[in-house]
């Protein structure tokens, strides 16, 4: 009979479930986030408490079986937040632990292939966010950007921004997941915000932003226009590179 393991939605929580499934020698397992959980008609279910120790043991076990790059795929895929992603990763982990050799790049295995596809999607979104974040200078001197990525990529883009914007305070806020990463000139912290009722993330109102901000946005828009070559216009290619759903962040597309 299938057992459903329910966890808090964190990566550690998920890995704890993997540990439990292994330890309890469960045959058929389904792992779901608490917020998606509905009590099954048949089968058992169990609420798993996140235990970092157990999570770390699973992670260390995986690490021994593959390269750092391959290991990273498991985390990336997890951040896709796709409804059945836990089961895909779980099956891939089983396959890895059951095999003698390193099979993390055996794309002939459906679970490994599926995992690598999810990873590719998440990774593409990560790169898009690194490119499409547009900071706007607030009145109190913070470079602020809001995003609504398809996947939960804030944990993945943190390092990239930390490495390059070392001399300015900045904040990237995920409007749909309601949390952000804030760099205070020393380190990056996770924060959640109480956004002002008047705040419209698609506008640059002088109520919140520095007056000079509007000037630079204007210069950037002008630049975007001037650098275009009309006789080469190719909107199909343009939209393929910058899908319309991202336009709302981009000051040059306003």
């Amino acid at each position, binding site marked *: 009979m299938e057992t459903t393991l329910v966890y808090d939605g964190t990566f550690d929580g998920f890995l704890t479930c993997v540990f439990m499934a292994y330890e309890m020698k469960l045959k058929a397992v389904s792992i779901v986030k608490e917020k998606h959980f509905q009590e099954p008609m048949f089968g058992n279910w169990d609420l798993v408490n996140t235990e970092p120790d157990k999570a770390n043991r699973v992670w260390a076990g995986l690490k021994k079986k593959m390269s750092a790059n391959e290991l990273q795929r498991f985390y990336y895929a997890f951040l896709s937040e796709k409804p059945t992603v836990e089961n895909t990763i779980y099956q891939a982990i089983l396959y890895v632990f059951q095999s003698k050799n390193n*099979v993390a790049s055996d794309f002939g295995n459906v679970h490994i292939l599926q995992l690598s596809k999810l990873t590719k999607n998440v990774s593409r979104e990560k790169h898009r966010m690194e490119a499409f974040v547009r900071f706007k200078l607030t009145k109190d001197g913070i470079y602020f950007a809001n995003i609504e990525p398809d996947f939960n990529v804030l944990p993945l883009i943190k390092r990239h921004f930390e490495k*390059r914007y070392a001399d300015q305070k900045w904040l990237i806020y995920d409007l749909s997941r309601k949390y952000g990463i804030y760099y205070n000139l020393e380190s990056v912290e996770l924060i959640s915000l109480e956004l002002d009722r008047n705040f419209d993330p698609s506008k640059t109102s002088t109520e919140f932003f520095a007056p000079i901000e509007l000037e630079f946005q*204007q210069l950037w828009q002008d630049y975007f226009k001037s*650098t275009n070559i009309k006789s080469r216009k*190719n909107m199909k290619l343009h939209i393929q590179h910058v899908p319309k759903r991202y336009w709302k962040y981009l000051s040059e597309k306003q």
Partner: protein
Amino acid sequence: MSFQRVQEKLNILADAAKYDVSCSSSGSNRTNKNKGLGDASASGICHTYTEDGRCVSLLKILLTNHCIFDCAYCVTRKSNDIKRAAFKVQEVVDLTMNFYRRNYIEGLFLSSGIFKSADYTMERLVAVAKKLRLEENFNGYIHLKSIPGASDELMREAGLYADRLSVNIEIPTEKGLKLLAPDKNRADFIKPMEKVKNEIIQYKSEKKIIRSTPKYAPAGQSTQMIVGASGENDMQIMYTSNYFYKNFNLKRVYYSGYVPISYDTRLPQIGTPVPMLRENRLYQTDWLLRFYGFNIEEILNEQNQSLDLDIDPKLGWALRNMHEFPVDINKADKRMLARIPGLGMKSVFKILNARRYRQLNWDHLKAIGVAFNRAQYFMVCASNQFEKRDLTPEKIKGLILQNSKSKYTSMLSNQLNLFG
């Protein structure tokens, strides 16, 4: 910084710089230091794309569009009746810093018309880069144009602050250059290129001994050629390109389809379509040379002086060399795998990886992303379904074009649209 003045200059000087197609910001190893701004080591990001689908990675501007020369193919030429403008050094610095802080760009690509003299111009370009590095602690990407004829001392200094340097050859043959840019000669382009090449070699060898040797143009140098302005065929273009790759260790050669900007009778007239498909075929050839292990003579030679427009150059090569095929996916070496039409280098690596575990059949190959339509005529795998007919190259080409009609016709008709 006066907003209005800068705005006007930016419009003029970005517009004049846009014909330089290079916008690459990759290949540097400059990291953030002393908590400054920027990091060029992870660059290569396109922050947006123009409406013509080109990557915008750098703030690409001219320092000035005043020029003492009169190159026929260039909007900035002396005899052209246009608005002229010139940035102050500080204005370029401020724009770069502020655009970078907002995550608009990876850095600056600064070029210029030649005012007064080559050295006078080069000195100003160097001054911008120096200020960004030393006063602003800017670690983003900087690409400077090497001004033809600039002195060795200035080129030496330029490389200390810039990640990349480039001189555009623009016209692939000397004959064409004489006709269209009578003030210029090859030797003037070659001089700064040669200096930069030697400095890079020296930097690399010193670096091995003394770790703290200051960086010198870590992203190397590149050049650009205009395609379709002076009647050269593809063979002339690619042989010139190959010559510069080999002799100056260039990182990249860019090919820029000529955009008609003048009624000069020496040039294609205004309204002539930009040869975008031809440009694309040249880039594909360039990739075959750099990443797929092809020699230029295999693709272009006395018998084949032009690339096919309707099929890609790798497929063209395969059709002329049917005796090399079919290739066995499960046995062939990397070199031959890379030569199968429809297989990119990524697929090649995936195949090499995956076949360690099992014999690959069509399903595996499809999952890996092999372009079945082209590849099927040139390969066999662990399946007894393969092309058994003895097809002529013409027949194969016909079948492939038939099945990929939408893609090719849209590209070809894209060209035609431009007549309208």
